[in-house]
């Protein structure tokens, strides 16, 4: 089934286009818009849609999708839990948090929990070093974390129906 946007999202797409002198520049913001409307991943249908709307080749769009970490080429779980493991967070327990999340969720980083609720991912420096260690759940940062707080956050995510 071909990918399509809602009327409201189409309006946002036109708004995005109005900001730039050409259509190619809208590529990344439009890919984000479409990913959000497609269960948080970029399928081949989404690539086709973006290519057509922005008058780009599908190859160009696919080249962009495959370059950037935040475009998901596979359907993720309902939530994405990113654990920063770069130096400043690692100095303050980031790796312990990562291992704890792996145990709680029963996956290695990159995997999705069996109930499909959470995809666990490692993140590189999230610019929260002064409040390390930090995790990002979808769009929200959780900082100054302890293992207990991480447990509370995971509890909420797995309960989320």
């Amino acid at each position, binding site marked *: 089934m071909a990918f399509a946007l809602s009327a409201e999202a189409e309006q946002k797409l036109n708004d995005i286009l109005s900001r730039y002198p050409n259509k190619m520049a809208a590529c990344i913001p439009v890919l984000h818009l479409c990913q959000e409307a497609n269960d948080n991943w970029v399928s081949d249908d989404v690539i086709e849609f973006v290519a057509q709307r922005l008058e780009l080749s599908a190859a160009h769009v696919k080249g*962009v999708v495959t370059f950037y970490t935040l475009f998901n080429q596979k359907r993720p779980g309902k939530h994405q839990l990113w654990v920063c493991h770069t130096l400043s967070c690692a100095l303050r327990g980031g790796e312990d948090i990562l291992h704890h999340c792996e145990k709680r969720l029963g996956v290695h980083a990159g995997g999705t929990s069996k109930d499909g609720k959470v995809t666990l991912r490692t993140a590189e420096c999230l610019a929260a070093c002064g409040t390390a260690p930090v995790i990002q759940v979808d769009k929200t940062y959780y900082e100054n974390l302890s293992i207990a707080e991480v447990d509370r956050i995971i509890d909420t995510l797995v309960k989320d129906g």
Partner: protein
Amino acid sequence: MIKQTTYLSHSYGKPNSWTLSAYESAGGYRGVRKALSMTREAVVEEAKKAHVRGRGGAGFDCGTKWSFMPKESKKPHYLVVNADEGEPGTFKDRSIMEMNPHALIEGCIIGCYGIGAHACYIFVRDELHLSKDRLWAAIKEAKAKGYLGKTPFGKDYEVEVYVHTGAGAYICGEETALLNSLEGRRGEPRLKPPFPAQYGAFGCPSTVNNVETLAIMPSAFEMGCDEFSKLSELHSFNDGGARLFGVSGHVKKPGIYEAAVGLTLRELIYDLGGGVSGDRPILGVIPGGSSCPVHLPDEVPTLPADAKWDPYRGKSILDIPLGVDTFRNAGSMLGTCCAMVMSDAVDPVLALHNVMRFYRHESCGQCTPCREGCGWIERILNKIVGGKGSIAELDEISEIASNITGNTICAFGDGAAQPALAFVRRYRKHFEDYIVSGGKSQTRRLTL
């Protein structure tokens, strides 16, 4: 010397600090009025007097960069803000965007006017959602009040500011990769020349400035850029004004501290940062993001013979003022001016392993020495950490890193090579002991 200032940080922690009303109550949007009453040429000359060295890590003089833009052009000019804060250890630009976004907006208006641009794109890394929200809200407020649009502050000089988002790539913090990403392409760096002032965004003359660089310009213009520069102990080194200093890792009070340029690492770590966690000795300090060399706390750098360096000769690296030229001439690098502190609880082998994993992950892959070199160094470190390394491979790390430096399209390669060279050189004995014992003699980790 500690001279704390509040030009950017006065609003930090205050409720609704990010609103236009709070910003104006605190004296905002005065510097831009001064700037718009001058000619474009006068704005650039004035900006040069501030001696604001680019706060993104390269330390290039802001006013000088603005002067590179063509005086007349058949093509539109663009101001592009580098808000892709991703250098490990760095978190200062985020504080400005979240808690004082109007300072950046005001700086963008001044910058646009100074370079002859009517449009500005603030390239924010995608992960910083709150920053993007606050910036869009600030733009909306500024437009509603007539500070942006066709006649900002009544001046017939259109200025529009847009927030643009990245998609998760540290390399997009490199200015030409950022321009490619802005254009809707893979974020791969370009060869320079041509420089952005000749051929930047959309093939047009562009200036790329860091968030903090632009955000401090309103304060500089308001008090007079020469006055602003003179706040700094390093004014005579053309490193002027005040800036944000970050500290993270094994310190008691990690965070952002604003002070006049002249602050030292010792003051940042022990006075402002509250001292090392557990009052432990320092294993090493990285002055400004992981692309900088790591230093032992008692290192005394060799400064050039010129008399202007005499005041700092013979001093520990911890006691030399944090400045672009002071650190460069001390064989170091100021970078983003956000220090990472490792106590003696830290194993430098594990620390370098962590850092090189980052560079391998973030390499864009265009240049063979970087693409292959980062991966190779990480794999050697994997072996060492796993207890299967050899001394010969330790030397290989330095050789591979040396072959990256100077052989790449962009400075990422140098940023990856520098920590590899510095850690192996400064902790050589520790690396050798680790290898010989297969890691078994080591009890240190990364955490306390």
